[in-house]
């Protein structure tokens, strides 16, 4: 087997493939810059990332919280777990002491600092006896 015979042909085929992929992806990035179409992206992105404004929402809430403060989270029932994980991620200096679905029977301590997540993603910080 002599590499000189087949290497240029195979390499040219490979380069045509790479060039085609680059062309299609370049056009795709220009037309739809935020389209996530790779294999794992197709499987997981929409499922894992329903909100693009989470970072900004939590940054706003963090400004109203003290470092090390324990907070309780209240969120819509259908997205409570998602908001809880996001709160742990985006508020590393605070402790998420409890998470409740809105309208849950188990209440929160009246003195608790509450992160109240509304249906539209707006986050309100409530303190003291009006908590829970």
């Amino acid at each position, binding site marked *: 087997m002599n*590499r000189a015979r087949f290497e240029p042909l195979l*390499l040219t085929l490979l380069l045509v493939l790479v060039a085609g992929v680059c062309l299609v992806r370049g056009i795709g*990035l220009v037309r739809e810059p935020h389209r996530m179409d790779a294999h*794992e992206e197709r499987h997981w992105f929409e499922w894992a990332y329903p909100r693009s404004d989470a970072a900004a929402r939590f940054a706003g809430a963090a400004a109203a919280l003290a470092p090390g403060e324990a907070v309780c989270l209240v969120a819509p029932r259908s997205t409570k777990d998602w908001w809880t*994980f996001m709160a742990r991620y985006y508020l*590393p200096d605070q402790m998420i002491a409890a998470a409740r679905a809105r309208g849950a029977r188990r209440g929160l301590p009246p003195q608790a600092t509450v992160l109240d997540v509304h249906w539209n993603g707006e986050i309100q910080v409530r303190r003291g006896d009006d908590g829970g």
Partner: protein
Amino acid sequence: MGLALLVGWSLLKPAGREALSPAGLGLALVFGTTLLVGIGFPLARLGAPVTASTIAGLAGLLAAGLFLLGRRRPPLRLAVDAPGDRLSKLAGLLLLAGLALFLAKLRLAPLWTWDHFAVWGIKSRRMIQDGALDLGFLDVRSFWGIEPQYPLGLPFAWRLLSLGAVPGELAFKVCHGLFALALVAITHHGLLLASGSRRIANGLAAWLAVSPVLWDTVGVGHADLPLALWAVAALVLVFAAIAVPAGERGKASLRLAGLAAGFLPWIKQEGLVVALALLAASALLVGRSPRDRRVVWQDRLALLLPAAVTLAASRLVTNVPRAHGINFFAGRWWVRVASRLAHPGELLGLAAKDLLAADWLGIWIVFAVVCVLTVTWRRSRRPRRGPAAILCGIVAGLLAVYVSIYFVTVLPARPHLEGSFFRLLCPLAPLALLALAAFLGDIASGAAQAAPTPPAAPQEMEGGGGQA
């Protein structure tokens, strides 16, 4: 990042222009990060503060110490004499285009996915409290989805590379982007060493640059790309060691290779299996190189000693034992294996579907062909004994190990495979490309040996240089 490069550069001491070569910078990043994490994490567990000033101090001390202690150590040589031609220049341009598209996508992509938020990124953001390492959150019940049994080397690395600050979107993206560029640069160097041909190296590196290893940004902020980077760094340094005559320079490369392989379990749990496979392959590669028997064992020792120390340290300091992590072998695993082996088609079919997915652009199909040719090609028996056979063996072996886990797993097997196997292939893809390059190098070498008169140049294609 700059401090990690400084520490790595002090360790490697790449000579002259090679210090600023992409592979030189990539290796400096790998070994700077390895040393900073490998020394910084145990110190932090002993109570040392983790702040910008202590991180800078540690990096400064390490760089100065390595520089002074290593004055008599031979510098790392990265030059490979493999002249280019028009086809190699075209491949090089496509490689740059692929990397540019990757960086553009990385900039545009929003901050990733569930495993980043819930498993990897969150640990990095939470592990330092008031300037000290605090892993208490891993014991909190509400954090149980965080996979506390996963190694903490990479989350700690992100934190160190952010100078102790809470890493945000920019820090994660910069780390991911630089790790990806380092991966391509070091792989390219390995392809050059393995094939002896610049156009093959450029072409295969361009293939890697457009592969899901980089393009699939769901892996951003996860550990699969760093695992690939450290694995490739280890293997390429073994290639570099056996490409030079036996001596102190080769031993220095092998020590670094052992260090990089030993760091793999600091990154991911399966890093241990990958490290052991790479070390076995490296020991075989050293044995097949033209060295005296006594020198072979000295070189193997140079490889395995740092690897053993780093592997042992990974068990002591990175895995924080927690009872509530997922153990795939939990319960009566042999019963699960028996029942799944009774109908293996479903799991094997799903694994094959991932390997044959169009997203891979044919990498695994070509790898399979290379494996078959390596085993069956009889005109010259050299490929059956050369680097290609060894690399095909470890990649195929690791694929088999990964697939076998889905027969064992305590989780529902089908969703477990569908949710992870494609991503697990990413660290193996650069190794598969190195196997392909080694196969082409073996053919060139075999053809050169079979030629009736010695050729004027060492390589028939391009007068290329180092044959691994």
